[in-house]
Each structure stands twice: as C-alpha cells, then as structure tokens.
C-alpha cells in the first residue's frame, strides 16, 4: 500500500546506477572536494583572508613571477587569493544551500497545499505565476533596496525566487499522487489532512523536488554570484566568489587571475552541481528508467 516502502529497493539500485555514471561520479567528487575544502577553510587557508600585504596583484605560481607563499597570487589589496577562495566558497555554498533549503521548503509546502486543497489551487498558482514573472536579479535588487545589501538580503532574494519554481514542480508531482488509490484509502480510514500530507503526499513528492533542488542549487549559486558581482552581496572585507570576481574586473587587462580564479570556481561548482542533479534525475525519474 505504502509507495515509499515499495520504492526502497528501487532507490538502492538507483544509487548503484548513479555510481556507474562516470561523469556524474567525477562531478560529485569535485563538488565534495570543494565542499570539504570550504568547510575546513580556517585550517586549510595558508593566510588570513583579510590581511592586506604590500604585494598586490602577485601572479599565481604557474606564472614565473609567482611565489609559493601565495599559490594563487594576491588580489588588488595584496590579500592571498587561495585563502579568500576557501572562505569565499564557504560563503557562496552556504548562500546557495540556505536559499535552496528555505525556498525549497516553503515552495514544497505551497505546492502540496495547492494540490491537496483544490479550492485554493487557482489562487496560489496565480500568485506563483506573478512571482515567476520576476527575474531573480530584479527580485534581488528589490530585496536589497528593502533590507540593505548583504548576504542575508541575497539569501532572502534567492529563496523567494526559488519558491515559485519549487511550488510548481511539487504541485505537478502532488497532483499525480493525489490521484492514487492509497490517498483515497487513507481518507477512507479517517486519517487527518495533516497526516495525509506529511506521511503520504510529502514522502511521495520529495524525490522529484530533491532532484529539482539539486539542479536549482547551481542556478542559485550563479544568480547569487551575479548579485554579489553587482555589489549587493557580501560586505568587505568578507570574501564571496562573485564579489571577488567583481573586484578583479578592474585588473582584467594585466592581472587576469584576480577575476578568473574565483570565476572558474563558480563555474566548477555550478557545472558539478548541474551534472550531479542531471544524473540524479536520470536515475530517479521513472519515465527515463530503462
């Protein structure tokens, strides 16, 4: 009767299939390395990420003028780029994770409510439509205008931008689940709405929402970096990848590493998150199952 229990053996094989996908595995490994490095930033960073030195724009070691003391060189204020990268990834990942978690959580509840209570469905979906019509960058600018700039404002903006998409995905999954016999049966034996939503609806929707959020994570990081690049994000001296790229923009002609190293890191994080999300979708989506 309970579809989630039936799913268990399938899911186990799903993970096995995921591990057979070489590209996804590499992406997962790279992402894991970045996450671990970011988590261990205080222990791994060779320098204080905020300490300025009198050696600005030192090139990275692969350039002949580089120094091993600063493997990725220094930025315009003479700060160690590697250390800033570690701390910056931390902030960027945290920003992505939090906004996806908050936006995803709210979006899922909204989507399920919409599918469960058909009477409020049109109303909720129109609100979602309105929200969908705002580009995330515009939302970010609006939120920054209200709350001021900073990481919190970016997280709020990204979370709000995530809600409508997640609500849509959840609703379409939930509508299918609502048509299943076990929902009817649950109602027949007198389960409360809360129990039905929590135990049956939520657990049956969560896999598709999870896949969507994995894919969304990459996008959110990218938009977050863009907002930071526009100067709405982290306050100096804290490091954030998008902001680091923005600061390096002025030196692009003669010290390109200041902008390119954080940009490449953003690229890697987004690429890997997307590849992992793609692979997860492939193995979890029953329609794509062969």
């Amino acid at each position: 009767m309970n579809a989630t229990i039936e799913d268990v053996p399938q899911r186990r094989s799903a993970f096995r299939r995921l591990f057979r996908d070489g590209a996804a595995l590499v992406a997962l490994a790279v992402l894991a390395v970045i996450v671990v490095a970011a988590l261990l930033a205080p222990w791994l960073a060779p320098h204080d990420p905020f300490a300025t030195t009198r050696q600005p724009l030192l090139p990275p070691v692969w350039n002949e003028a580089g120094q091993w003391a600063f493997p990725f060189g220094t930025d315009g204020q003479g700060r160690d780029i590697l250390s800033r990268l570690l701390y910056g990834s931390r902030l960027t990942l945290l920003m992505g994770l939090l906004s996806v978690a908050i936006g995803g959580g709210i979006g899922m509840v909204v989507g399920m409510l919409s599918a469960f209570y058909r009477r409020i469905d049109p109303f909720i979906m129109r609100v979602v439509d309105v929200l969908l019509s705002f580009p995330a960058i515009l939302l970010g600018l609006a939120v920054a205008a209200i709350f001021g700039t900073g990481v919190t404002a970016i997280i709020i903006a990204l979370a709000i931008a995530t809600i409508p998409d997640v609500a849509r995905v959840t609703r379409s999954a939930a509508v299918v689940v609502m048509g299943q016999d076990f929902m009817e049966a649950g109602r027949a034996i007198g389960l409360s709405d809360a129990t039905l939503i929590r135990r049956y609806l939520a657990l049956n929707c969560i896999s598709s929402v999870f896949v969507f959020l994995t894919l969304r994570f990459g996008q959110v990081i990218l938009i977050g970096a863009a907002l930071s690049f526009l100067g709405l994000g982290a306050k100096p001296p804290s490091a954030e990848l998008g902001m680091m790229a923005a600061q390096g923009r002025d030196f692009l002609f003669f010290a390109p590493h200041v902008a390119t190293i954080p940009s490449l890191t953003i690229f890697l994080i987004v690429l890997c998150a997307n590849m992992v999300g793609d692979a997860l979708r492939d193995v979890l989506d029953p329609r794509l199952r062969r």
Partner: protein
Amino acid sequence: MATTALKATARRLLAGGVCLAAAGLVAAPALAQSITVVREVDSDRYDPHRSTARAASEVLFMVADTLVSLDYDMQTVKPGLAERWEVSDDGKTYTFHLKDGVKFCDGKKMTAADVVYSLKRWIDPATKSPVAWRAGEVEDIVALDDSTVEYRLKAPFSELLYQLTQSFAVVIDQATVEKLGGDFGVKGFNGTGPYCWVEWRPRNDLKLARNPDYNWGPPIYENTGPAQVEEIVWKIVPEENTRMAAVATGQSEITQYVPYSTLNTLRANPQLLVSQSDAAFWTYFAGFKIDREMVSEEAVRQAMVLAVDQDAIAQNVHFGEVEPAHSYISQAALDWNRELDDKLIRTDVEKAGKLLDDAGWKMESDGFRYKNGKKLSPVAYSFAGSTWQKLMEAIQGDLRKVGVDLDIQAFDATIAWGKMATQEFDLFGMSYPYISAGDALNLYFRSSNTPTPNRMNWKDPATDELLDRGKAALDPETRAEAYGKVLEKVHQAAVWIPLYHEPMKLVQTKKLAPVKPHNIYGCGLYKGLDIKFQ
C-alpha cells in the same frame, strides 16, 4: 534557378554594403575636426551657479569665460575677459577693465552690465548657489561704464581673484537665462566661450561647436582663438575599462578619466600620449565625525590616522600614479606654510597600537579591540564605485592591523550625498579640488559650514578666528601663517585621515598636438584652445 538569383542579389547587396562602407571612410576626414572626450559622470545641470560638479565646470570653462584666468602653475592670475584690473590699497575694491569686441555665442555684444548681472546672480540668495561664499562678502558690484566693472567688498578677501577664475564666476547672458528659466544650462546656454552649446542629452553626451569669432582667449594659450577643432563631444562612459578601450581604439581622442591601473599599458602604446600636470590639487581624505561616541576620543582618531599607510595606498590602489598625502592639502598649494614641512602626518602602526592600549581599548582574541564590552568598529560611509571601494578596503585593511574593525557602507552617488549629510556615521570618504590653503580650509573647517561641507562637526572659535584673519589678510605671509596654524590644529586633533593628492593626467591620441593638462577644479582641458589635430 531561384537560389542563383538569390545569391546574385546577395552579392549585389554585399557589394553595395562595401561601397557604403567605403563612402563612410571617405567621409570620415570631414568629421575629423570633431573630437570626443569620454568621462565617467554627467552633471545634473550646467548652470554655473547651481552646479558644483567637476563635470559641469569642465563644460562651463569651454562655453563661457571668466574675468580673470589661472595659469598652469595654479598660482598666477592672468587676464581673461578683463584685460587688466586694479586693487585698491585697502583691498576692498577691485576695478576690472574689460576687453573690447567680446561677443556672446548668439552674436550679441558683451558689456559690463552682463558681468554685473552674472556675478550678482551668483551671490543672489534667490539663486541658492552652494558656492556663493566663494565670491567673498560683497558690498556691491557695479558697471562704471560699458567696459569697467567695480567689485566692492565689505572686508578684504585676498583670494577673490583666484575665486573669480573658477567656473562659478563665468559671464552668462541675462536674456537667455530669463528665456529658459529652469531649463538654463539644461536645454540651452549662451556664453562668450571658445565653444558654443549645441545639445545636451543627459547621461549620454553633450555637444559643443567652435565659436568662429572667438579671439579673446587667456594669454596662457599660444592660440587665443578661435578654437582649432570644429566640435567637442563630451560622452559619458561609466565603466572605466571601457573608457580605456575607447582611448586605445581611437573612439575618444582625449580624456583624463582612465584608470591608473591601465596608464602603464597606455604609455606603452605608440599611438597615445600620457601627460601630467605638476600641480596636484585634488585631495582625497577620510574625515571623522568628531562628536560621535566611537571617534570622539582624540586618541582613537590619532591611532586610526597613524595606522593608515598612505604610501602603500598610493602604490597598491593607484599604482604609484598619485602623490601620498601627509597633510590635508598639497604642499605645493598657494599659501602652504613651509614650517609644516617637518610636521607632516606619517604612518606609525606601533604608536597607534600604544595609543589605543593607553586609551583602554584592549585587543581580544578575535583580533579586534574592545572597551567596556564594546567593539571598536566605526561605521564608514563611502561612495560605491571602484575607486572609493578600493580605498575604503585599503583603509579597512590597515585599521585591522591595529584592531579596528571598520564597517564600510557604500552608497550609490545618487544617495551618497544625502547619506553623508546625516549624523549617523563615524567616518566618511571625500575628495575635493582647491587652489590655495585658504580655499581648502575655509570650505571644510568653518563652524558655520556644518553640517556640510564641515561634516566633521569641527566647531572651534579659535579656528574661525584664524580663518577670518587669513581670509582678510592682504599679504601672503599673514595668510600662510594663519592657515598654517589652522592646519597644525586640525592635524593635532586628527580630524581627517589624509589619503592622497591626485595630479591631473591626460591620455590623448598622437593625432592631436600635445595638450598641456591644467588642474583648475580638476578640469584637465580647461578652455580647450590648444586642442588641434597635428
């Protein structure tokens, strides 16, 4: 068949396109008498009495003239619309004898009445000019005849002639001002300058055309008129690297607005010429709001001043293209007191730390100082935009070394001015142009100039008295002495963190004859009379 026909048509069209392009190339030399100057920001208007922006002055110097002009040394006053002038012995009456044959852009003859109208509009309370104080305490300005103007002061104002060289003192046409009303300097302008106003598209470009009758330029130029190019287009390009690219690719013939970081690249470009004026009278500083709790302690301010490394900032942020500032004004400025040469502000991180220790601010394990559970974390208001952001971060980095956690809040230029007029910050970043010690000090340190531009709330009767004495002095020694004392006072009280003096640097294509940079109000091209194609 159809495809062949199509191809043929396409070929014909392409050929036509090539012809058109070629025609464009042929037509180009005709336009070559036009030059484009790229710059970062536009002014809100071009009314000499109602705009203080450098962007406005840049254009006003070209479309209008002042009674007297300033030489490249920023110290010598030369004739302008007035061919000569006399100053009475008591220093209160200035008589200007105007040049003959000066005409406005619309062909009307300029007379003493126009001069009187312009100067009176400047000081008229109804104009609400933020720079009316620059005209001194005027008793009256009268036209003795068509070519003589008498400027009567209530008290001597030794800087009057320097102030009259500024763009606020240009001569404008009354009829045009009255006709255009609020649109004066927006939709039109009528002056006697070497160039005439054509059209302004705000935040896009401003077009000026040569005034063919002009022959009354200041004698600091070899060519006193008419101008040697047909047209000047002032174009707004906010992104600094784009401006640099515009100069490097020939889209702009000349500009002073290229990032310092790219100057070395531009110097290496054989098609470009980078020149610099010796006078660096545009100073960047960070000022304290001295009655705010966190920075009301003199020791805290002194420590912060000592912690900032001006030499490193000039080197790191501006690639050594600027002069590190060790006083609030340039040592080359008029009336600089030589006795201060060995009392300059120098970086001393150790002493800064000791001052804070003695004042009871103890360093905690997080690397910042605390007193009574309160973190030493002053709030700094700054302009957003790459220059100030980099500067503030550099200051923040230096302060961090002595345990001060600077909280930077950057605002877009549209709201920054309003924010900096409030009382809610501890430190603010600002830069300003001046010609003399008195010009600078009278602007910022007079009690009556609070809340702006005296954003520091520096209210000191002794300072006011010294400023008055300097302002009214008739000889340079008294001025230098009075202003030197003021500087010593404010240095001692650590009211500002001086950062650097900015010299004027021009980047131009070698297709133009070398243009000598002027530093008047930071407007490098001044009247633009020496701009010409080789």
